[in-house]
């Protein structure tokens, strides 16, 4: 029996009319294109980031940097220390070699291939950034997490532990850590490890404060009270509810710290704390070595400087985009 939109609906059987009604409703509601309900915070953030030009630019830069750093052996045409063209460069006579077919970025002041050194330097720079960030993240999260957990768990004991840890963190903030690192280097001699540890230690109080703050603000949320009322043990709440929910700002900070670490490492190189090992050049060291020739051969400094600036920019853009994507205020 054909169900044309009849002039008299009562002639059509009841169940068919109901089915048509439901179908029509479903069709109309389907047009509204529901946005995925119930997706996790992180998945939502990722979706927002995919639409953000800032995040895309940052991710592209970071991806390029990481690929170059990981595959540097295969990309670099020459070794970092090979002075094949040593006879063509005379810094004291202001004779330098610019970009040419066999040396894409020209030669440095010792006649080494700039392009190869940049590519190999990418790995060293990434290494410094990652290790320093890890140092800051691990120790900072440990300190901040302990303080935050103690504060959330409460009690006189907990609050006192929190207080003590916070005073220590405050003191660490007051110390110019990079200069402490310089004193170390002045005594034990410069090395890559000193740079990484020094830069990382400088970040510890920042991570610690962030995580503690986030945990305390999470700790006063209603769901914590609800879990407590349901009889979940407090340290279990701290571990399984509060801590995971507090990691957002810390992860954003890690991304931003990768940028800071690379810049700070460059500053340490400038202060004479850089890695003296020429076979594993790092952009900061290359930059501070090239300062001397800035007026005669600016490109020697400009390449590593651009490397640092662009990479740091990439991490910063990514971190800022992530922060925006996770910000509950901007979510709607």
């Amino acid at each position, binding site marked *: 029996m054909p169900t044309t939109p009849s002039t008299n609906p009562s002639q059509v059987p*009841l169940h068919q*009319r*109901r089915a048509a*009604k*439901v179908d*029509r*409703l479903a069709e*109309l509601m389907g*047009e*509204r294109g529901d946005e995925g309900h119930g997706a996790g915070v992180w998945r939502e953030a990722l979706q927002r980031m995919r639409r953000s030009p800032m995040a895309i630019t940052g991710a592209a830069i970071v991806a390029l940097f990481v690929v170059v750093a990981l595959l540097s052996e295969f990309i670099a045409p020459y070794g970092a220390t090979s002075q094949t063209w040593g006879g063509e460069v005379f810094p004291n006579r202001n004779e330098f070699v610019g970009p040419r077919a066999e040396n894409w970025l020209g030669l440095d002041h010792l006649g080494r291939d700039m392009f190869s050194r940049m590519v190999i330097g990418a790995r060293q720079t990434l290494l410094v950034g990652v290790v320093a960030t890890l140092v800051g993240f691990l120790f900072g999260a440990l300190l901040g997490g302990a303080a935050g957990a103690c504060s959330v768990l409460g009690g006189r004991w907990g609050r006192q532990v929190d207080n003590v840890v916070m005073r220590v963190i405050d003191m660490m903030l007051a110390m110019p850590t990079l200069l402490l690192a310089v004193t170390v280097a002045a005594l034990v001699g410069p090395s890559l490890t000193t740079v990484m540890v020094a830069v990382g230690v400088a970040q510890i109080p920042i991570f610690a404060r962030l995580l503690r703050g986030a945990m305390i603000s999470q700790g006063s949320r209603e769901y914590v009270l609800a879990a407590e009322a349901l009889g979940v043990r407090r340290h279990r709440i701290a571990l399984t509810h509060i801590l995971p929910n507090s990691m957002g700002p810390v992860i954003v900070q890690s991304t931003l710290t990768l940028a800071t670490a690379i810049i700070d490492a460059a500053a340490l190189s400038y202060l004479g704390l850089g890695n003296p090992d020429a076979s594993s050049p790092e952009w900061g060291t290359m930059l501070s070595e090239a300062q001397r020739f800035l007026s005669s051969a600016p490109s020697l400094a400009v390449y590593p400087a651009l490397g640092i600036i662009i990479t740091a920019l990439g991490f910063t853009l990514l971190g800022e985009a992530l922060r925006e994507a996770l910000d509950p205020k901007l979510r709607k």
Partner: protein
Amino acid sequence: MTTSTPLLAVDELSVVFHRKGQGETRAVDGVSFTLEEGRVTGLVGESGCGKSVTSLALMGLLPDRGVKVGGSALIRLPDGEQDLLKVSQRRMRDLRGSQLAMIFQDPLSSLNPVVPIGVQVTEILSRHRGMRGAAARREAADLLQRVGIPDPTRRLGEYPHQLSGGMRQRALIAMAVACRPKLMIADEPTTALDVTIQAQILELLRDLVTEEGTALLMITHDLGVVAGLCDEINVLYAGKAVETAPRGPLFADPAHPYTVGLLGSIPRLDAPRGEPLTPVRGSVNDNIAWADGCAFAPRCDHYTMECLQGPPPLVGASGDEEGPGHIHRCVNPVGRAGPDRPEPETPAAASEEERG
């Protein structure tokens, strides 16, 4: 009832938000109502139905970019009739605070935390009434006194965080009535307050309306507030008024299923024990575009095929005696067996079918 022209006549007001990459949202979709002097008109609906956006549109407080406002809102001012939606921004700034005033929902966040209450009251006096110095402060103290704030001179020097919630809302009301506006809009003014304070604030508003002859547009989701305060009520759903009626008929004989649903959701003291509340199913997000049919249909127990064929027209409530003041927007109004209702589907059967 009143034969004179209304103070404010809102006609087919629409507000469309444009968002980058998300298309447009019709927050208000053709709302019409009138306000009379000395009377309280209610705008009722769930959150998201467009009632706050309506008030912001009338006050000209919507963001400049990404919003399109349509329709008209004719207001009778001392210097002639004007369309609030068309006046210049400069003129609107002159009108706001002097002819139009607004009271917001959250009194704490609506007050500047770092500026003393006194300054926040006197600044409106100096802006619109040219009062300065001691005279302005005296008037500010009088205003605070009038809205029931004790020890007003001392309060002038205090900051919002030093006041209680009720006092803050009173201070905001003092600012709103400072220039004796013709029209006052109150956007859920009691939601953030305790019940006892709520009653006090509502009484204060009622008194101000009767004493000053101000027209009050009361925006609320609370039918208790409506019952106690409003003379006329507009029920909004998904950006459209679905039913408009004076207070009595609306509560006694609601026509639109949504109004019925709202009324059924209130716990009543006089209901027999054990009688279940009848909530409205789903949420305000479960709707269809008005252009396709009745937006309430997905949540309605009574909807038929006709509900899904284009926007339902506005009709007078037929079959009862309350007169022309009662109109609604439903093809199958409740308790009014129209000629186009041949199929007596029981609500229970219909909902069962959809759930299954």
